[in-house]
């Protein structure tokens, strides 16, 4: 970990040693990992990165962990696809899809969790824990299994069975928490204080958040070592949005790419868009909301990184935009039907929001645009509804041909 300087408060800038801490003791602001970028710049080059593994760990010098200790289940270096068909429909010549739904547990969460699990072992934690309603729990359970750690996954008691099984298969202790969402939220926050566990998105949050930067690095490298003109990023806590930008800025600082002039757009669902609402009203405070959206993986009503995401929107000239609830499934189907990529509801939010951005003239035809698809569609099959209308036929050629012709008419 030669390049990490300390943890630093995002608010008052107080500095702390590299320990499992997430909150400033002085102002209770969130902590973030601070690096010696001069040292990073001296040790990395395009060549050194290109000779690394085909995973997110090729960017090891930018991550807050020791060398050669990574808990890696082959996460990252996911495809960046030139989406010509979708681009044609939307009127974009250079539209790319960053398909992070092909990670080992089928979402981008493998990136932050890989970093966190590695760091948890360095801190000699024996227990890895999280509280989640979906993607995060599967990733934590998988990484806990790989690391040989005891793993505990908390989830709201009314969670869908499919999501529970998707995590349980890796063998963690599963804990169903009764009560309201708010009660579960407060309970788990207190649990993190009461046990010496590596709670990935609580006491390990500064390290957890760093993993998402690798999406920014990958996009820049895959575009031929340059930052795109636009990124369209799904927004839940707002952390992914800030960290992709941090990744681009770090690459620029290390001299790996020219100045990043990327407009960092944030896409939320209409039924849970607290950051977008603050952006639209010109506020720098994010007013918490009660989520009411089919995009469950984005249903964070009180986003921890909301104010920082707003800063990124304003600093980069990005737009906070929401997808109408009734357009989310359309977005999923549009991506599937044009590019052969089946994404979950968060991806539907991104594609529908992208459409709105183009319509509003925020993205021009010849600009390089990257839309981030962060989870696999098989995770939210229940939201797709009954949209299949098959041709029903007897096993008879004539009947089939007649029915096929009438369908085409």
């Amino acid at each position: 970990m030669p390049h990490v300087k300390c943890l630093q408060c995002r608010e008052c800038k107080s500095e702390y040693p590299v320990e499992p801490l997430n909150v400033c003791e002085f102002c209770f602001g969130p902590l973030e990992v601070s690096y010696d970028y001069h040292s990073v710049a001296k040790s990395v080059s395009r060549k050194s990165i290109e000779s690394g593994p085909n995973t997110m760990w090729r960017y090891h010098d930018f991550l807050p962990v020791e060398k050669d200790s990574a808990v890696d289940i082959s996460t990252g270096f996911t495809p960046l696809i030139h989406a010509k068909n979708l681009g044609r429909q939307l009127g974009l010549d250079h539209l790319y899809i960053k398909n992070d739904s092909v990670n080992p547990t089928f979402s981008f969460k493998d990136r932050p969790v890989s970093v966190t699990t590695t760091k948890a072992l360095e801190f000699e934690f024996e227990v890895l824990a999280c509280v989640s309603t979906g993607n995060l729990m599967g990733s934590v359970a998988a990484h806990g299994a790989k690391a040989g750690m005891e793993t505990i996954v908390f989830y709201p008691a009314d969670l869908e069975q499919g999501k529970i099984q998707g995590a349980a298969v890796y063998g963690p202790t599963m804990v169903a928490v009764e009560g309201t969402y708010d009660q579960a939220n407060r309970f788990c926050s207190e649990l993190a204080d009461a046990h010496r566990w590596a709670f990935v998105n609580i006491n390990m949050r500064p390290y957890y958040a760093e993993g998402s930067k690798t999406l920014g690095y990958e996009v820049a490298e895959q575009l031929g070592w340059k930052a795109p003109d636009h990124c369209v990023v799904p927004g839940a806590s707002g952390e992914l949005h800030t960290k992709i930008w941090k990744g681009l800025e770090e690459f620029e600082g290390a001299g790996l790419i020219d100045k990043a002039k990327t407009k960092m757009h944030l896409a939320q669902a209409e039924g849970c868009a607290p950051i977008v609402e603050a952006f639209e009203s010109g506020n720098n405070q994010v007013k918490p909301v009660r989520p009411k959206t089919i995009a469950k993986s984005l249903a964070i009503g009180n986003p921890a990184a909301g104010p920082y995401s707003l800063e990124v929107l304003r600093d980069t000239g990005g737009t906070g935009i929401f997808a109408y609830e009734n357009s989310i499934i359309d977005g999923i189907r549009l991506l599937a039907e044009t590019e052969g990529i089946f994404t979950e509801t968060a991806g539907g939010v991104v594609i529908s929001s992208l459409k709105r951005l183009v319509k509003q003239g925020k993205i021009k035809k010849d600009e390089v645009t990257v839309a981030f698809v962060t989870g696999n569609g098989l995770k939210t099959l229940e939201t797709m509804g009954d949209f299949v209308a098959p041709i029903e036929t007897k096993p008879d050629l004539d009947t089939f041909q007649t029915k096929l012709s009438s369908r085409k008419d």
Partner: protein
Amino acid sequence: MVTKRVKFTFPQELIKEPVIYKLGVDFGIVTNIRRADIRDDMGWVVLELEGESDVVDEGLEWVISTGVRVDPIAGDIIEG
């Protein structure tokens, strides 16, 4: 005795209510504000509460009953 770190978010109609004062006077809870931002249309306060465990819980239930939102200081930690 316990200490709890929480964030209160005040809707516009409650900004002028002395909620934190009442936590001290009516419940005997020691309050220590660390960060705050109060605007015309909303406000939030990040603070530490110290008192007997059941009294702090009772105080927080009362705060919630007034319409003030109470969250852990790290925001929503349940992720998708």
